[in-house]
């Protein structure tokens, strides 16, 4: 069995102040293998977004360790950290907010190419067009401003930007929650396609169990800062062991009387 790509051990995070002293993460541990998708589910306040931010080092934990791509992730600093960040990218919930309001599609995708010297300047346009093609967008979009394209297109551009880094892991923090239902399916299909092509790992954070079930190999259920259940996706959903998992399963609205067959969109 291959070594895990990401190993999170006993990570804790506490927020002080405001008189609340909240424990956001309480000794959380999990592992992610290369090419695997781990779905992280839970209600709001369960700590899943905090965990995503700690894993991507947007926040520093109070305790615990993280190993990523064979190195002590938390020990990295400065230039070395910035260099290795290339391997772990993130797609955010709000497609519009994730881009500099002044950015164009081209400048957004070219940023990682420039920052990590992944291509000479002369080749940026061609590389950007190729990346757009991989997320099924036409190269004509390169000249458009970020606010000029649709939400679904923006999320694809966000994926293209992440792919430009040639990452091993992409953290998706409620990445489809703000999209229309029919677009969600397309983005999920794209994620699976890219994973098959590149062997990417995904940490897929969501409060919607149905969306997670569609793409995850394994699911970890969080509640109040702890992982309360973990296992293969189909098993967790079919036979949930914890109360939270049961509540999450029950909360997904079901389409009864479905006579229109599910078609591959």
């Amino acid at each position, binding site marked *: 069995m291959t070594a895990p790509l990401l190993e999170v051990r006993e990570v804790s995070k506490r927020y002080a102040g405001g008189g609340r002293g909240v424990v956001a993460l309480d000794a959380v541990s999990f592992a992610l293998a290369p090419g695997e998708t781990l779905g992280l589910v839970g209600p709001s306040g369960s700590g899943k977004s905090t965990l995503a931010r700690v894993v991507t080092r947007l926040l520093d934990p109070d305790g615990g360790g993280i190993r990523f791509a064979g190195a002590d992730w938390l020990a990295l600093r400065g230039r070395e950290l*910035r260099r290795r960040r290339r391997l*772990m990218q993130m797609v*955010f919930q709000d497609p519009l907010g994730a881009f500099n309001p002044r950015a164009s599609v081209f400048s957004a995708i070219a940023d990682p190419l420039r920052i990590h010297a992944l291509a000479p300047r002369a080749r940026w346009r061609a590389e950007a067009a190729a990346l757009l093609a991989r997320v099924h967008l036409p190269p004509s979009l390169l000249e458009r401003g970020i606010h000029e394209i649709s939400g679904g297109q923006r999320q694809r551009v966000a994926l293209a930007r992440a792919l430009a880094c040639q990452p091993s892991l992409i953290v998706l923090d409620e990445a489809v929650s703000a999209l229309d239902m029919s677009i969600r399916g397309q983005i999920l299909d794209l994620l699976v396609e890219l994973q098959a092509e590149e062997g990417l790992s995904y940490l897929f954070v969501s409060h919607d169990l149905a969306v997670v079930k569609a793409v995850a190999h394994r699911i970890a259920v969080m509640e109040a800062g702890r992982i309360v259940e973990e296992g293969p996706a189909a098993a967790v959903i079919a036979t949930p062991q914890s109360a939270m998992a049961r509540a999450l399963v029950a909360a997904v609205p079901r389409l009864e009387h479905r006579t229109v067959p599910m078609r591959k969109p």
Partner: protein
Amino acid sequence: MNAARRFLRSPEGVAGAAVLALLALLALAAPLLFPGDPLAIAGPPLVAPFADPALPLGTDRLGRDVLAGLVHGARASLFVGIAAALVAVAIGSVVGTLAGFAGGLVDEALMRVVDAFQIVPGFLLALAFVSVVQASLPVVVLAIALGAWTGPARLARAEVLSIRERDYVASARILGMHPLEIALREILPNALPPVLALSAVIVAGAVLTEAALSFLGMGDPNIVTWGSMIAEGRAVLRSAPHLSIVPGLALVATVIGVYLFGEGLAELLSRRERRA
């Protein structure tokens, strides 16, 4: 450009821009329209306005041409107003951005400096500075900026604090962007628009402060300004009120023009945010 077209759709902005354009034109054309020193004697003293076609607005107590003074005075007012606002916004933006970005002790220290400057009323600060240093236009500009930079500083800091938390800044960090580049490319350009909108108000205030300094005789004594004209007219206020009123009206027109322009600018900037 898109922005210009949007600005033109705001009637206040257009009106303000028109007033300011006219003033700027007059200010620039002053040496052409009224060659020679406006402080030179042009005719007999206290000629009434519209009495002599060569002196459309009459003369003051010493026989100086009022219209020439008015047009030349526009140069001083506009120069001081705009220059003081630029200096204030520049200093304020840098200090505010530094404070917002650095956080911690640096933020605290800088904010206490801002507090110190903000406690003293701007006009008194300008007055004190000008009394200590010999008055000249650049000194007046600096004096006014000393009182006006705190507003942009606080605004810039507030903007930076809010932008720091946005997803696109987090995104830039995750991409591995250098912090300096994040500050200059991601944060600063997006923090500036509200500060720029504030600058219109600062220009208006600066014009008035300059006039007040000149009125008190603390301005540059070698040039004519509207403030000094109002001061000159004070002695004959009952017999020749127009000597003070006319430059006063010019001040009013300038300040209104600046405010309207600022409104148009704010409209323009807020509309862009709503779209995005």
